[in-house]
């Protein structure tokens, strides 16, 4: 929808043959700041990193906040290290054979396997050929928690064609993938905490507007809403809640038994 009035502004989309418009519903300053400071739960972090993959605007905003973190750290009064700190480090460094002492997970994740930006590994090719558009639904940061191909996700039906898949994740917040057939509604509900919904495929509409791929809807406990998947394509979302979800309405109450956010 947002794409229609943008001929003059989105020239980048034209030559890139972008599959969809850039997201128009962005991350809040609060979420981005908590993410930069490093205090978000894993579930919220996954949602943020997924949005950042799909949204160049928020990516630039997030980079600015990292730079702010750098300036903040640089302004701290230095805390002297123990006398032998540098010598100990040099000893470790001399003993440091790459591949020894397994590096942390995100040391690896930051770089493509094989260490270059030059080529994609064989795995990637396998991932990108094959089954068509749906392979591109899930950004890689999500594929750590969900099978890479949407077809391979082991969904749990929760009624009326709606399906869910819970991500196994640490922390208080919960992350769930939702599959809503085109034209169907997610049961009406409110939340005790905040709910963040990121669209990965298709689109939904609720009282706040239209949400397409990459868009993030943020709902707090005041919002009693009923998102409806738009016609045309089944809608797949990543939903993250930091408090229990409460379904309202007649149908919703029946759903409460099934949907355990």
């Amino acid at each position, binding site marked *: 929808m947002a794409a229609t009035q943008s001929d003059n502004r989105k020239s980048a989309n034209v030559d890139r043959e972008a599959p969809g418009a850039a997201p128009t519903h962005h991350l809040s300053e609060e979420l981005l700041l908590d993410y930069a400071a490093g205090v978000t739960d894993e579930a919220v972090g996954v949602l943020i990193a997924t949005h950042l993959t799909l949204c160049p605007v928020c990516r630039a905003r997030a980079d600015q906040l990292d*730079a702010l973190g750098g300036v903040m*750290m640089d302004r701290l009064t230095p805390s002297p290290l123990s006398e032998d700190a540098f010598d100990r480090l040099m000893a470790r460094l001399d003993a440091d054979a790459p591949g020894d002492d397994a590096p942390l*997970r995100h040391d690896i994740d*930051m770089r493509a396997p094989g260490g270059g930006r030059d080529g994609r590994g064989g795995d990637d090719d396998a991932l990108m050929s094959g089954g068509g558009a749906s392979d591109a639904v899930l950004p890689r940061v999500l594929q750590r928690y969900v099978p890479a191909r949407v077809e391979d996700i082991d969904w749990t039906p929760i009624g009326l064609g709606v399906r869910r898949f819970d991500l196994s994740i640490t922390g208080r917040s919960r992350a769930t993938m939702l599959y809503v057939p085109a034209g169907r509604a997610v049961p009406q509900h409110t939340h005790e905490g905040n709910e963040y919904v990121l669209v990965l495929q298709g689109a939904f509409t609720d009282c706040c507007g239209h949400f397409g791929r990459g868009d993030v809807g943020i709902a707090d406990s005041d919002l009693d809403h009923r998102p409806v998947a738009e016609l045309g394509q089944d809608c797949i979302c990543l939903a993250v809640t930091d408090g229990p979800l409460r379904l309202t309405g007649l149908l919703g109450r029946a759903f409460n038994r099934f949907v355990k956010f």
Partner: protein
Amino acid sequence: MKTTGTGNAEQETERAAADRSEPVEPGPEEHAAWMRAVAQERSKVAFARLFDHFAPRIKAYLVRSGSDMGAAEELVQEAMLIVWRRAESFDRAQASVATWMFTIARNKRIDAYRRMSRPELDPDDPALAPQPEPMQDDSVGADETAQAIRTAIADLPEEQAEMLRLAFYEDLAHSEIAEKTGLPLGTVKSRLRLAIGKMRGLVDDDLR
């Protein structure tokens, strides 16, 4: 400013500094030059200089966010090992050295205290949405951005600066800042939003 240093490394650093007869405190230019020397020549002298400047700041950051001294020392070691190993992946166009150091220290802290690795986007992901052209302006480097930010936060009202310190140094989410300070959550949010809005405004002015 030299903080601590030991033995040969310090002497070499001092000697090199004297050679260049530059008494001023090293800035982003020097930091980037040291990084280049570490990446390309595996220079231990340059690495010692990076250590002198950043290690005590990383330690201060970790202590402020709740590490005890011993744990902070160990995490500093691990962070600086990453700097050594991954020096060639440092991209000056994307981040200043101080920014890069911060992200490494922050991620170390998350690993150690939250027992998780921070979910991060994969820069090689085919799903990565490209930057629209107006945002690809390479003429403004990360160092200029950092300088604009430094200027912006130097004259923030104290009440806003304090919120930033709580957010970045003390491992507190917005809601926890409200709890700790006794301020209403709305006030915490609006002060932080003002501080960041000011920063973004100045940075964008500088960049256009």
